[in-house]
């Protein structure tokens, strides 16, 4: 018998999406109400999810609930909550507050949690597409803006291409192993090379989603073009889901082919770290800069996966968690750069921020040093754990390249700090922020700043997860 209790979060979100849609259609000017309701939906889903602590597989073993997926789902819900919280003001002022906006976010959330729990190629693909479709629309949400429409279209075309490759890979895997189930694939496949081809295609599709080099081209344009509230989402949520699927995919059915895919991941990791660091140096737009920065951060996260050990996976998850916190803080800062209802997003707009807005400047300082990985901030520990795992496997080349690219990356983070602290001051920004963005900034900055006192506060959830 299928125990639907275990997929209660998924069911709850699907039902809420429908209910909210109906409310939106029948009640006039209900967009604010729906936005508020969607907070509730996310929080309730989180509460339900936390209460499910069993390991269980459903639907002919095509859907798997375990510690790993529950943890990732919790992270997704928390992140989504903060994303919506910190971007509310932006959405209101930018005139994006339509009923579709929160509902699309919930749709992509649903897609992500399906992805995370999937144990079957088809289920996984359905989740992925549900997630992506919602994101295409969100990227182009500011439809009067040329850049936004361009980014939506660009994301759609490239994403469709990568989905095509991914689907082709799935079909190859199915063809050579007669099954789509993750657990059976490893037992079944007869012709190794065919499956390897399939695996590589699927990896390409997933690498596109995490924007690992050389599949990163869309990221800077989409990050810059989309409304900032959507960029926050892009920088955080799809990466969690895609990285989780990479872990499940590689360490599930293809663990036997470790030596085959290890070199691919090492390449993706090194290329992302180097390109992300070098290309960000010349950027003038903060959103574009953070796009390159997130490319290089994904490189570090992938470095943990090259190890083939549980330590490596845990280090990636720690990295991912801290990455989310840092991004939340960064974007909260960015969403505070408002003057007369116009949001500013260029590096030069920050000039001399520290004189008029010392607290905001200090938060920026903490976040940027943390992104650069300077101790004792959280960003350092993220890198520290990853390189602990990498050096344990004696992969010194990866470690040295990785740490030297942090020095290059430090340069462009320092450049922003230089603009904030050393340059001439400009006009004041507004200071009348709503509670949401202030709260998310304070919460994330304090976490970054004080993480070092007891790293186990976050790590304890992750260190109990074992994937292999």
């Amino acid at each position, binding site marked *: 018998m299928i125990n639907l209790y275990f997929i209660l979060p998924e069911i709850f979100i699907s039902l809420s999406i429908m209910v909210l849609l109906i409310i939106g259609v029948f009640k006039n000017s209900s967009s604010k109400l729906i936005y508020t309701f969607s907070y509730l939906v996310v929080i309730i889903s989180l509460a339900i999810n936390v209460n499910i602590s069993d390991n269980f597989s459903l639907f002919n073993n095509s859907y798997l609930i375990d510690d790993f997926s529950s943890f990732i789902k919790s992270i997704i819900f928390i992140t989504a909550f903060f994303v919506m919280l910190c971007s509310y003001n932006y959405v209101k002022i930018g005139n994006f507050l339509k009923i579709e906006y929160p509902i699309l976010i919930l749709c992509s959330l649903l897609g992500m949690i399906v992805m995370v729990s999937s144990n079957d190629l088809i289920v996984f693909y359905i989740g992925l597409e549900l997630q992506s479709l919602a994101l295409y629309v969100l990227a182009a949400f500011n439809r009067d803006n040329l850049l936004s429409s361009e980014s939506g279209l660009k994301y759609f075309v490239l994403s469709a291409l990568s989905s095509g490759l991914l689907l082709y890979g799935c079909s190859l895997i199915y063809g050579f192993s007669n099954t789509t189930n993750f657990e059976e694939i490893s037992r079944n496949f007869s012709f190794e090379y065919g499956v390897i081809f399939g695996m590589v295609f699927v990896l390409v599709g997933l690498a596109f989603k995490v924007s690992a080099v050389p599949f990163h081209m869309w990221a800077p344009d989409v990050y810059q073009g989309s409304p900032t509230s959507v960029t926050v989402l892009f920088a955080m949520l799809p990466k969690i889901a895609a990285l989780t699927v990479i872990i499940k995919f590689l360490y599930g059915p293809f663990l036997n082919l470790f030596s085959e895919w290890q070199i691919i991941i090492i390449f993706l990791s090194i290329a992302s770290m180097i390109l992300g660091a070098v290309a960000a140096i010349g950027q003038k737009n903060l959103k574009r800069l953070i796009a390159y920065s997130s490319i290089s951060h994904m490189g570090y996260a992938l470095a943990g996966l090259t190890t083939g050990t549980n330590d490596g996976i845990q280090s990636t998850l720690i990295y991912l968690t801290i990455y989310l916190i840092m991004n939340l803080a960064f974007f909260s800062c960015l969403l505070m750069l408002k003057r007369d209802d116009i949001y500013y997003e260029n590096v030069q707009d920050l000039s001399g921020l520290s004189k008029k807005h010392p607290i905001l400047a200090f938060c920026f300082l903490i976040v940027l040093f943390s992104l650069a990985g300077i101790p004792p901030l959280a960003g350092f520990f993220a890198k520290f754990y990853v390189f602990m795992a990498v*050096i344990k496997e004696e992969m010194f080349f990866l*470690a*040295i390249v990785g*740490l030297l690219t942090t*020095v290059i990356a430090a340069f462009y983070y320092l450049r922003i700090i230089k603009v904030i602290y050393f340059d001439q001051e400009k006009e004041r920004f507004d200071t009348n922020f709503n509670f949401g963005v202030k709260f998310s900034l304070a919460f994330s900055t304090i976490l970054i700043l004080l993480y070092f006192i007891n790293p186990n506060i976050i790590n304890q959830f992750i260190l109990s997860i074992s994937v292999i």
Partner: protein
Amino acid sequence: MTNFPILSSLILIPTIGSIFLLFIKSTEKNNSIKYVALFTSLINFFLSLYLWKLFDNNISDFQFVETRIWIKNFINYKVGVDGISMLFIILATFITPLCIISVNNHVKIRLKEFLIAILLMETLMIGVFCSLDLIIFYLFFEGGLIPMFLIIGIWGGNRRVYSAFKFFLFTLVGSVLMLIAIIYIYWLSGTTDVEQLYNLGIDSKYQNYLWLAFFSSFAVKTPMWPVHTWLPDAHVEAPTAGSVLLAAVLLKMAGYGFIRFSVGLFPVASTDFIPLIFTLSLIAIIYTSLVALMQDDMKKLIAYSSVAHMGFVTLGIFTFTHQGLEGSIFQMISHGLVSAALFLSVGVVYDRMKTREIKNFRGLVNIMPKYAIMFMIFTLGALGLPGTSGFIGEFLILMGTFKKSFLAATIASVGVILGAAYMLWLYKRIIFGELLSTIKKEIMPDLKRDEIFILSTLAILIIFLGFYPEPIIKTYAVSIDNFVDVYNSKIETNLVEK
């Protein structure tokens, strides 16, 4: 009182003080802020003196050790002092209040933030000198980059941005390699606890690479030729208090790191790399002394002299003799005092004239006699005249070097002469001669009360230690004896194994 966590208090008090500062409103007069900061740093200074009094000179082990679980089953927070680190802690706590007293004259904007940065710096400096775990050490060592970057970048001179970036990136490159080495040591030995690592020892086949990784970090920080180029820039652009902290304490972190980690953990590799260190140190001594001769900027001249003096320190450490090591530590303490004093002296004239070009000064003795006397003492201290603290360090180092290599000692002695040349020439050009017509008496008054206080404190100490070095030497003698014995026995066992 035996269980009182005195070292952790030393580390934490400046941070607590800086948090207090955050909540004090900065007013036009700014006095309350400065007094809170001064009070904090003085508490720390007296606490460290008390620590020195409690410190038992006859034990070579680590004392006042505190161990706390930090990350379970992984890293422990562990601090402790022995004879080697004791004096550096005193140096750090002694220099910080002097910096805070001196800020009045040269920090015009954002005094509160400046004081917070200085106090945080003090926390990190003390942390570096008493941490007994490699990862804790690394955190303190690297954490220092953030406040120092801001001190140079916000309150620095015209080319402050360039200098701050150079300082930050140079140091970071060296340090990340050290991080890799630290992590690898963890996987090799299962611990990063320094005491345990001393006992376990590290297999000699891994030592060379690990030594090089540590070397890359310490060489940049020392700084050794050819990676010393960040130092003159950073010194020149940093505000006086920043230069003082940099020269007096930050550079000593590297010298301390060489003794504690490079030699302590990798004795075999250290022996193998003696030629490298000797060559680089001698180049640093001769080359940077020559460069110092040619400088137009007073601060830059002193910065280059710091590189030369640190060359003596590394030379002394890698002789692995009692005299060499004792001399190195003494030289570091002495250089901490002398260079701090010199930078403060330059700060005195810079605050009045807003220039540091040597050619803009001449004949200051005519209008600033007190200043001339103070500057004389520091100049003599810097060139190592007998009767000043500079002499004892250099003398011991040269003695140690003679034991190992006659050639190296001869070249280093030439460096001493060059040191005398550039310092005396600097003194002659600034102080003696006729008063330059551009210098007005009104803008160049003689030393003010607080300046006299700071400079005379340093001058008395420099002369006192020159005549009576016993309190310093007594503190580290037993630790150094033990350190050299352990080193020799490790080298012998390694030879036997081969």
